[in-house]
Every structure is written in C-alpha cells, then in structure tokens.
C-alpha cells in the first residue's frame, strides 16, 4: 500500500495537526510500513463474527445508573485554573465569527 504526502496532509488536516514538511515525508514512510502490516487483517475471514464493542459487562441491568442526587461540581475558578487564557469566567479563544 502506498501512502502519499498528499494523503498525509489530508489526514493531518482532519486531525487538526500542523506537520512540518520533514514530518510529512517521515510520516508517509512510517504510515506506509505500519498500514502495510495492518492490512494483512484483510486475509482473515470474519464473516459472522460479532464486533467486540464492550470488554466486560457484569452489571445488573441499569445498575450503572447512579442515584440522581444533586452534587457539588467543580467550581468555575478551579475549572479555569489551567486555562491558557481565561476571561470573565470563560475560556477565551480567537474570534470565530466576523461581524
């Protein structure tokens, strides 16, 4: 399987990941070798095998629902302590809407 630099840039775009030109060419090589190995899975017939979407489920039905009791949540100041740019009790980000 061939992975082109164009494909790498497309996927990086989906992942919101800036890559340098050197990283793009290295990534194309690495992805090609890893996906080349992974593609062998297609040789295995899995017709009729259910997907394992859950590792274990030993709970009684609905037992994972906790009691609907009001509890204190993380205070606003604590939630914002790690904010790169807090302001007015919010996380500030660059302008999204032009007006």
């Amino acid at each position: 399987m061939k992975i082109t630099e164009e494909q790498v840039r497309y996927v990086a775009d989906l992942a919101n990941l800036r890559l340098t030109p050197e990283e793009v060419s290295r990534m194309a090589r690495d992805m090609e070798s890893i996906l080349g190995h992974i593609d062998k899975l297609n040789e295995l017939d899995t017709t009729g095998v259910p997907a394992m979407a859950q590792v274990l489920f030993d709970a009684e039905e609905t037992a994972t629902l906790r009691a609907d009791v009001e509890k204190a949540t993380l205070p606003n100041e604590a939630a914002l302590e790690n904010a790169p740019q807090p302001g007015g009790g919010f996380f500030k980000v660059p302008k999204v809407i032009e007006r």
Partner: protein
Amino acid sequence: MDIAKLTIEGIRAGLKAKQFTAREVCEAALNFAEAENPKTNAYLHFSPERALAAAEAVDAKLARGEDAGALAGVPVAVKDVIVTKGVRTTCGSRMLENFVPPYDATAVQRLEAAGGVIIGKANCDEFAMGSSNENSAFGPVRNPVDLERVPGGSSGGSAAVVAQGTAVVSLGSDTGGSIRQPASFCGVVGVTPTYGRVSRYGLVAFASSLDHIGPFGRNVKDAATLLEVIAGRDEMDATSAFAPVPRYAEAMTGDVRGMKIGLPKEYFAGLASETGDLIMKGVEALKKLGCEVKEVSLPATEWAISCYYIICTAEASSNLARYDGVKYTMRSADSKTLSDMYRNTRGDGFGAECKRRIMLGTYVLSHGYYDAYYLKAQRVRTLISRDFQNAFGEVDALITPVSPFPAFKLGEKLDDPLAMYLSDIYTITGDLAGIPCMSVPCGATAAGLPVGMQILTNHFQESQMFRLAEAFERAGGVAGA
C-alpha cells in the same frame, strides 16, 4: 532501616515496634529518591509536602492507637498519567508541562486513604505511548539494572523506581503491555488486573477500551496488597466492575499442586533465545511445585498486533482531540484564527510518537475506512477473546514470555516504529481480551539482564494468578527448577 529493601510488611512491623515513624520513612525515601534520580530520570517531580502530610497523618493515627491502613507509611510513586490534585501531572508531554489537576484519581484517593505516601510522579512515554520510555518529552528513563539500557515502557519510571528502591510500590498504567514489559526489563513484579477491576477515573485516557491502572512491587505480595486497596467499583467510572475484591493474601498458600498450566504454542514458536530458555526453566520449576503443564493453542495470535494498533490508535486519536489549546494550559502564541490555534498547539505540543498514533487513528477512522479497519479489528478482537475463553476451559492459567528480548540499549530501536510495535506481541493479547496478567521475575540472561515470565488467568481470577506467582517466587523462581 534499609530504605531500598523495605516491603509493606517490613514497614508495618517497623512502625508497630516503633523502630521508625512514617515521617522518618518518608524523609528517607524522599532523600534517597532525590539523590538517585539524576542516574535514571525515573521521577519527573517530587511531592514532598503532600508526602510529609500523609506520613504525619499515619503517625498521628498510630499514636491514637487507630488502624492506619493497609499501606500505612508506604512510599509510593505514581505514573505521571494519573492525576494528583495540586501536584503537576504532565503525561510526559510538553502539552501538559504545567498542568495541575483540580482533582485526584480514584486510585490515588484510595491508596492515600489506606495510609500510602505519594513521594513523586514517575516518568513515562508521552501519553503512555511507547515500549522504551524514550518518548518522554522530559528525557528517557535509564534502567537501574544497566544505565545504558531502557527500562521498558510506557511505565518505565514506575518500574525503575521500584527496582531502584526509591519507592516500595508504584502505580503504572497498561494499554498494550506498559506495566508488564517494564516490570520484566527491570526485574520487578508488575500487574495488569482485569479490565474494570480498578477505576480509570483520573487516568488520562489513551485508549479507553484497553486502559488499565495496575501496581508494581518488589514481590508479589506487595503488588497484590496495592491492587487490593485500589480495586473495586467506583461510580465515577461506569466500566468499573461490581465484582467483590477478594483478600488476595489468603490465596497465596504456596500450594499449587494440581494447577493446570497452558503453554500457548503460538507464543513459543521461534523463541530460540535466552529468554525462551529462561521461561522454560520457569515452567520446569512450576512442574516441580506440582503443576500440570500442557500445550494449548491461541490461533488468532498472529492477527493481534494489527488488531491492537487499529483499536489503540483510533481511540487515541479521539481521546487526544481534547488537547487543542482551549482548556489545558498550553496554547501556541501568534495563532490568529481558531483553526490555526488548534493546529499550531497540537503541532508544537505533541511528540513524534503521539503524532504518529493520532495520524494512524484518524486515518483508520476516516470516511470509507471505518469498516475495513476499526470494525474489522473489533471482530478480530472477539476472536482473540474467544481463544482465551477456550484455553481457560482446559487450563487454570497460561504461561508465556513477556517480551521476546530483555532490555535493549537506548536508541537501538528508536528509528523503526513498526519493529517497536511488533515487540509488543506477547502483552497486547491480554489487554485485548481484558483478562488479568502479570510479569514475575524469571531469572536473568548471562549478561545479567532480567527476564519476566507472564502469567495470565481468566477474568477476575487475580487470586489464582497471585497464588501461582507467589508460589513460584517462594520456591526461588527459576532457581527452583
């Protein structure tokens, strides 16, 4: 008090006999850890204030004649992917270099409630992605057994501190072997419990369907005691199990006569090496203890690496999407638009391995590929899980190597990510099936490098696993063969 050789039982006895106080143990551990750390870089940072407060609380309880808990006064290190309130938690990443969590992980709360004393945070591969601890943004960890070699990964720091004696026990995390492989490289005990046995609340997510928190110790009993303290249902993690937590010590009778052991033939094919020879010697020792050994087959093993690297990268790409410059400390300067801010922050904050896994995960989940990769891998995961269920219909436990080779030199495998992934073959299957598995020391190569033997049992059969491991340890390990 020889701080490097203390055990949980030794500390309990010493506190009871008033040979030392918890504060004295804590100070000795902190001093020793700070002095040793330049050699190995196993700790990223220390938490002396929190540690001394915890130790003093233990001493106060003992002075009042109260029970101070199963881990009273025991120095513990915590892998830096597990959050600690008020103590920096970096995940070995530039992205979280200055992140100070506003809450404690459930495992951290429980171990402190039992009297444990957290002295510092252990180095690890960035976001727990790696098999050598060379992917930490804050420098690699060196193996205390041989400083030219890696300690294994991703919980390399957690294994190294226990081997070095700067902590008595530690917490690590395991997604594809990240506890067992470093335990085997450093010659200590490392345990990956059943999926859901320990709450993941406060474990920074890498691949949620595969992530486990588990203990390291210098002997089986210490690791089992730490697991017993942190295990059990937690309403903050919906996948945590309701199954009651047994008293593991009661299972460790030393008597394993009649226990049925399976050797999966797929794991031993082509293993003509010192590692293979040592594992077979370990099996001989188990036979002498009265175990019945037979060959079993896990036919889906050859598909496990592909299956694992689809599922773990897909889940990682999704879990790591939250690091976008909005909430978690780091934001790249000079980003004019929201989109630039996301891209620049992630481009600057993540290291090469994280980027590789985000890219692979995004690729396998992208439009048109979901069925061919993720869904296919989930079906293969069912086959791998069924193999184990079939095997456990015939035997009580499986014995395999942990890693195809012992600790390698720093830099030796860094340029070939596929080769590094392929070395995870013996450990990823247990994570995919969600069964308990552990590494127990099984001798050393001629060059003096430790080798670990892996024991796997069925879901929630940790007691059985510990019984076998402790009997092997008690009989002298491979020396008992």
